């Protein structure tokens, strides 16, 4: 991994301080690691600039090797960039709190909606799920099956438009004494103007307390463009990185944080309803560095 590569780079290190000159090859190794980890190339460039500023002038501490010291600077900088993270669920006031899940096709929204409902339920909340994907074949059935499994009610209206049914869902939740509504929207491309407008319309009808971008951990460079556009149109509260139980490095997390300034809040770690964990910057930093 990166530490091994950097040990080679700094093997002949004779100096006492890290200088601009002697960290150049180290920066190249970091660049390679981050690109292989799917961090967007522009984000990598900015990140290396920050690392360079942090590392240069550092005295090499006696108890560590120059490589270890350099890795620590990189790791700490990555952690600082990925966090801080607020994992709290939004509180209800007079009306139920609303969480809206959005993202590209197949990223894991429907499964994550059920996971969030389960998480909320375990914390003593009374969630309700809204099947707001009115297009995908059997999308409603999928959410209903998941809702039934965790005994969380699902609001569905097979023949309604998404904004109206979301509004009805929140009204139904309020009436039934539910205190958290989770809107599962259909997948869409950030360049599909009509579908992006549908999300804006849902937002107008039902102002969400949280809007989470659900992103597949294996997403490459496209994470920057898509996160940027979803954020521009909707204003994101955070992101949820799914399928982290695979071996994708998850560099998309850094791209998303960098371009939207909002953090990854949760990670999906299995296909089952209990597979949602809080995002911890230090763990993902280690994984991104490889």
């Amino acid at each position, binding site marked *: 991994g990166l530490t091994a590569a950097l040990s080679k780079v700094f093997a002949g290190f004779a100096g006492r301080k890290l200088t601009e000159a002697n960290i150049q090859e180290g920066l190249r190794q970091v660049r390679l690691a981050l690109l292989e980890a799917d961090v967007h190339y522009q984000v990598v460039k900015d990140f290396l600039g920050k690392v360079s500023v942090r590392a240069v002038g550092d005295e090499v501490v006696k108890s560590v090797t120059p490589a270890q010291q350099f890795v620590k600077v990189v790791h700490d900088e990555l952690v600082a960039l990925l966090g801080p993270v607020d994992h709290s669920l939004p509180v209800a006031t007079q009306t139920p709190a609303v969480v809206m899940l959005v993202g590209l096709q197949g990223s894991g929204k429907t499964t994550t909606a059920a996971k969030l409902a389960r998480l909320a339920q375990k914390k003593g909340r009374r969630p309700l799920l809204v099947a707001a994907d009115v297009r995908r074949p059997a999308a409603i059935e999928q959410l209903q099956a998941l809702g039934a499994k965790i005994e969380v009610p699902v609001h569905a209206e097979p023949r309604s438009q998404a904004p109206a049914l979301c509004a009805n869902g929140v009204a139904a939740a309020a009436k039934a004494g539910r205190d958290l509504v989770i809107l599962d929207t259909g997948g869409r491309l950030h360049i599909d103007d009509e579908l992006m407008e549908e999300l804006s319309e849902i937002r107008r009808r039902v102002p969400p307390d949280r809007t989470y971008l659900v992103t*597949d951990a*294996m997403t490459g460079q496209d994470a920057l463009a898509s996160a940027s556009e979803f954020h521009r149109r909707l204003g994101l509260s955070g992101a949820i990185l799914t399928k982290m139980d695979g071996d994708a490095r998850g560099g998309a997390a850094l791209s998303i944080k960098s371009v939207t300034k909002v953090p990854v809040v949760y990670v999906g770690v299995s296909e089952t309803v209990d597979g949602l964990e809080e995002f911890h910057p230090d763990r993902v930093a280690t994984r991104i560095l490889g």
Partner: protein
Amino acid sequence: SLFARPLDPSVLQDLEALLLGADFGPAVAARLLSAIEADRKAGLVPPADAGAALARLRAHVGEGLGRGDPAVRLAPAPPTVVLVCGVNGVGKTTSIAKLAWHLREERGLSVLLAACDTFRAAAVEQLEVWARRLRVEIVRQPTGADAGAVAYDAAEAALARKTDVLVVDTAGRLHTREPLMAELGKIRRVLSRKIPGSPHETLLVLDATVGQNGLAQARVFREAVEVTGIFLAKLDGTAKGGIVLAIQDALGIPVKFVGTGETPEDIAPFDRERYLDGLFG
């Protein structure tokens, strides 16, 4: 001489940005840029001519992708069996609807679908909707049934009905889950025992937004089942799926189809020039 100067750094940077941004990956990008540098030394690219460098880059990428046969190869006698696999959410089920449409409408072949995702909530229902809309037959059992048993039933039905093509949907599975990869291998064995020589095509569906992990996916799926081609889905987005070049290089697996939308007609046999236009156009 005019070509003695090295390539303009800004030209190199722009080429690299294009390659990295398209998910070719740093190793492939470096190799392609060295090829351009060699072209410059050979006098094929003037140092500051971005257009000439881009044309050479397109040529190198095109060479790398190869000329392969993008169609579904039919078995000597029906049924031809197409096994579809891939990680979660990439577009397998939707791509199967597209394949059904393409095989029937564009090649005049009869199609039978096998709903072998017996795990995920409403997966069988999802494929059933497509079967109904496309008016193709489907072999299915309720969610929770054994996927291998459904595969067996479907193979038996395809033989009995002398269907031209049997297309088998499977559950999304992460390539890091050994028991799930073993199950996929089992589905393949069930098919090949019932219909000798099958599956005749095994398509790995990749999401065009996939980054470097796409290579690991291709490698592991190829280990478990003989992947004969890639179905590159979601190419209607902004992602280019550039990892397919590394996959062709390392594993010799060609792209056979692309998915360009969410309806059955949003399928096209892989057209190298069109793909290159999308990158360099």
